């Protein structure tokens, strides 16, 4: 193996070779070489997902209000669209659709801003806090996700998420403290944008209630939003980082198995790859994980039973 160039390595070579004998820089070079195969590959699926998801969510409102669709039939669809709303925005937060200066930059920004509308969160707010999460993953003081998504058991986690929904909760304060600590132009815009989103969301809820549609708004938006909050935080934040959160590039995230595989976990069984190489598109992280597995095992990454 020492006599071959890194570019000639096949998957078979990787699985057969003892990568633990490689130096740190050789492993890093190999890791980057494999990851590079997946970075910059934009699929129609990842573009269609947010567009269709938002279209379905928006269409539920006139369908239910006109009586065309029963509210109880619309409810599971609303919950599903809220659950699926975050991840395309997450890819946009990492400039996966297009970096500044790219021709597809407009697509990145459009998906980033529009995709999270069902979950009433602003793109800038999500982006600024999420980048801090990547920089300080599992740091109790600096990771804004830590207070909300911590817990050494599922029960503790559920309790923390429930508490985060209360007025002036530790979780909400952590996000605001993160943005205040950053004190950049973008952080201030993030606060402004999120305030605007909250005001608009509440304005819509109040307007619906004033017109005798409070229950519709409650079942079509408020409840699905809470369901999405629990679901996304469980799979995107708690399972990959907790219990027993550690810090360090190859320690702060671990793999896990999910009851319906990648589908039910929204691709998060391969979240460890996302933390190592955030610019790999979500739909390609499972494939990247399979290719990177020998390298990750050599690094001592906890891959669970993956």
């Amino acid at each position, binding site marked *: 193996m020492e006599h071959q160039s890194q570019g000639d390595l096949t998957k078979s070579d990787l699985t057969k070779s003892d990568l633990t004998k490689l130096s740190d820089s050789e492993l890093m070079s190999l890791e980057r070489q494999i990851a590079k195969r997946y970075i910059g590959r934009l699929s129609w699926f990842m573009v269609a997902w947010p567009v269709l998801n938002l279209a379905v969510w928006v269409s539920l409102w006139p369908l239910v209000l006109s009586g065309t669709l029963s509210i109880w039939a619309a409810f599971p669809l609303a919950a599903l669209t809220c659950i699926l709303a975050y991840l395309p925005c997450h890819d946009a937060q990492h400039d996966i659709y297009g970096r500044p200066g790219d021709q597809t930059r407009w697509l990145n920004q459009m998906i980033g801003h529009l995709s999270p509308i069902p979950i009433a969160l602003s793109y800038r707010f999500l982006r600024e806090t999420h980048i801090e999460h990547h920089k300080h993953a599992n740091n109790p003081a600096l990771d804004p996700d830590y207070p909300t998504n911590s817990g050494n058991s599922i029960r503790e986690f559920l309790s923390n998420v429930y*508490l985060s*929904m*209360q*007025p*002036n*909760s530790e979780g909400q304060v952590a996000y605001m403290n993160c943005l205040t600590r950053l004190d950049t132009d973008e952080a201030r815009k993030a606060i402004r944008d999120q*305030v605007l989103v*909250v005001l608009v969301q*509440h304005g819509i*809820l*109040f307007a619906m*209630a*004033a017109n*005798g549609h*409070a*229950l519709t*708004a*409650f079942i079509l938006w408020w409840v699905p939003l809470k369901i999405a909050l629990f679901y996304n935080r469980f799979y995107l934040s708690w399972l990959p980082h907790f219990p027993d959160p550690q810090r360090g590039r190859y320690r702060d995230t671990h793999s896990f198995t999910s009851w319906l595989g990648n589908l039910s976990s929204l691709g998060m069984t391969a979240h460890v790859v996302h933390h190592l190489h955030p610019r790999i598109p979500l739909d390609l992280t499972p494939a990247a994980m399979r290719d990177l597995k020998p390298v990750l095992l050599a690094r001592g990454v906890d891959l669970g039973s993956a």
Partner: protein
Amino acid sequence: MELVSKRETFHICFDKILILFHSRVMQRVLETFLSFLPVWFGLFFLGPLIAEIIGLSFGITQVTIIPSISEISVYAITIPLGGAWGGLAIWRGRWI
């Protein structure tokens, strides 16, 4: 005399509105409003929601205060209750 176009007038007015929103007074107003958001949520959403649920579940839309003399809408009871619940949530730090 220099004529100011309609477009320029619009931009001048818009800039003045933006300055107003950036003012410390406006920021204070916004902060105060947001700090009482649970109260507004209770008043303008939870209250009407509870009234709608009562109406749909039990068919009650009016409540008798003094028999055969006065009736009030269920909303008149649930809206203040919702607002009070929101206030309690701020005070206790929890909705439930």
